[in-house]
């Protein structure tokens, strides 16, 4: 272990994960509670010849990301709610133009500038539907620093594999809390590198012509091929088209590459789910409080369990349905007014057994808060 053992903030674990994954371009605008990510990368990236740019705002940041990614870089930005709102426009462009990029949102309280230094999980649905138009998105989260690291690497892998933006939804508690992190050795976590075209210079390259397996090889922009990139519906050359077949085909492609793969990449952790009478579903820092309650109840022989979601979007309907099948009660623990609770109700059979344990005052939900809800459900204390 030795030099690989660190005691760090979640934001630093995210930075370590990004560097491990081969990040070579970061553009961003510092904002609490994500600032440490920009701060650390400003010092770390130039040492390896990689680029850090502080942009004038988050719209510029996402646009810089898109440009840099097209040239062949692995790219990331980090922000919080207000910046994430500005990013939505560019996020839609990156979805449409199929640009691999990673967007970290360390959530604080909103709407608007809200409560900058306190925790909320209010951007879950914004990550799903914040940008306009029908689309699919990938959003991942984590509740501890080892997983923050792993999910950050995973975000880069998914971005490269599916040519898509990936949102990392952390929160203030995870971002600022310090705990142990063991840095994996190189090669310990499998890495996906960009699929580049084998088309030679002087031969026509079609940026949006899928291979047999559906993947789209890229050519570094500014390199040997000239091609067009646009936010408009486009044909295989990347030129705008309003042909109904082209529009239909492209939107279905954008949806299917994410939604149809959902079964392949939902990440989650489970604790005592198999025989749980009361199953918690939670994520991010709230999942730590839920786990606390579960471990305590189990020591007393009571059948509580936890399904901790790490992939929030595409929503893991099948996993949630399967894991909740035997539970009498399902309690969603989150720090918003029920954003994931809503999706859980849609996924499970008999949604009347789904309850919400939440807190929306900027304070991490406590085990006591959760136990109050349990008391209401069971009609007794424990």
């Amino acid at each position: 272990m030795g030099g690989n053992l660190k005691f760090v903030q979640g934001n630093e674990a995210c930075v370590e994960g990004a560097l491990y994954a081969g990040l070579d371009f970061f553009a961003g605008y510092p904002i609490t509670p994500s600032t440490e990510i920009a701060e650390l990368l400003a010092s770390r990236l130039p040492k390896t010849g990689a680029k850090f740019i502080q942009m004038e705002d988050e719209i510029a940041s996402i646009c810089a990301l898109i440009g840099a990614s097209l040239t062949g870089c692995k790219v990331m930005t980090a922000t919080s709610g207000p910046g994430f709102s500005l990013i939505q426009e560019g996020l839609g462009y990156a979805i449409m133009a199929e640009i691999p990029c990673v967007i970290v949102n360390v959530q604080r309280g909103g709407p608007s500038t809200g409560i900058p230094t306190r925790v909320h999980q209010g951007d879950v649905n914004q990550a799903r539907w914040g940008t306009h138009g029908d689309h699919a998105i990938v959003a991942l989260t984590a509740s501890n620093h080892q997983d923050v690291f792993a999910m950050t690497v995973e975000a880069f892998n998914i971005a490269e594999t599916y040519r898509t933006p990936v949102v990392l939804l952390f929160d203030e508690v995870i971002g600022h809390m310090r705990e142990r992190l063991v840095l994996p050795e190189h090669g310990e976590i499998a890495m996906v590198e960009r699929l580049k075209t084998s088309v030679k210079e002087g031969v026509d390259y079609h940026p949006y012509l899928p291979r047999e397996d559906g993947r789209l090889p890229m050519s570094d922009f500014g390199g040997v091929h000239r091609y067009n990139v646009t936010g408009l519906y486009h044909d295989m050359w990347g030129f705008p088209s309003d042909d109904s077949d082209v529009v239909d085909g492209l939107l279905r492609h954008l949806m299917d590459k994410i939604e149809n793969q959902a079964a392949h990449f939902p990440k989650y952790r489970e604790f005592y789910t198999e025989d749980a009478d009361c199953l918690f579903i939670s994520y991010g820092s709230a999942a730590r409080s839920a786990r606390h309650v579960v471990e305590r109840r189990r020591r007393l022989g009571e059948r509580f369990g936890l399904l901790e979601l790490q992939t929030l979007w595409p929503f893991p309907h099948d996993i949630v349905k399967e894991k909740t099948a035997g539970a009498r009660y399902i309690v969603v623990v989150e720090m918003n007014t029920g954003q994931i609770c809503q999706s859980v109700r849609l996924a499970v059979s008999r949604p009347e057994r789904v309850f919400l344990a939440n807190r929306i005052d900027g304070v991490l939900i406590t085990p006591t808060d959760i136990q109050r809800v349990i008391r209401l459900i069971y009609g007794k204390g424990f």
Partner: protein
Amino acid sequence: MQRSRFVFSGSGGQGVITAAIILAEAAVLHENLNAVQTQVYGAEARGGSTRSDVIISDSEIFFPKVTQPNVLVCLTQESYNKFSRILRPGGLLITDTRYVRTSRTVDAVQKQLPMYESALDKIGNPIVFNICMLGAVTELSKVVKLESLRKILEERVPPAFLEMNRRALDIGAELARKSEA
């Protein structure tokens, strides 16, 4: 081991959060324990009340905040007034004599130590007040070894200030030992 829960409270700029980080880091890096450290952030850079929580345990730690500390450190009157009631019965309360006048008798070991004055008198610089406090806390709580803290100081503190910090740690520990005698 018994799970140890610390709350460090004081005013922004006193180094309360830094001290909490050093303690937790020593536990993780040099004693093979688990630790989590959190803090309540305000918008201010200086002034205002600050609080940092540390939990140290040999098992996994889930909920990272402290509701009832075994060890409570108050470096201002305001933080004492605010937090003294949350101390776990039978716990340890450490206050600084210059800043805090204790007004209540709590079911705890109460240590009122001249940490600020000692740092000022013997080192001539109150900037190491927090490290002096950490020496006292470590000596009294016995959760991590002073030696582990020294290693963290060596890793974190710029060479020009290292000796000053080492001395502050020893002064704090000495104050604690005297108070036990």
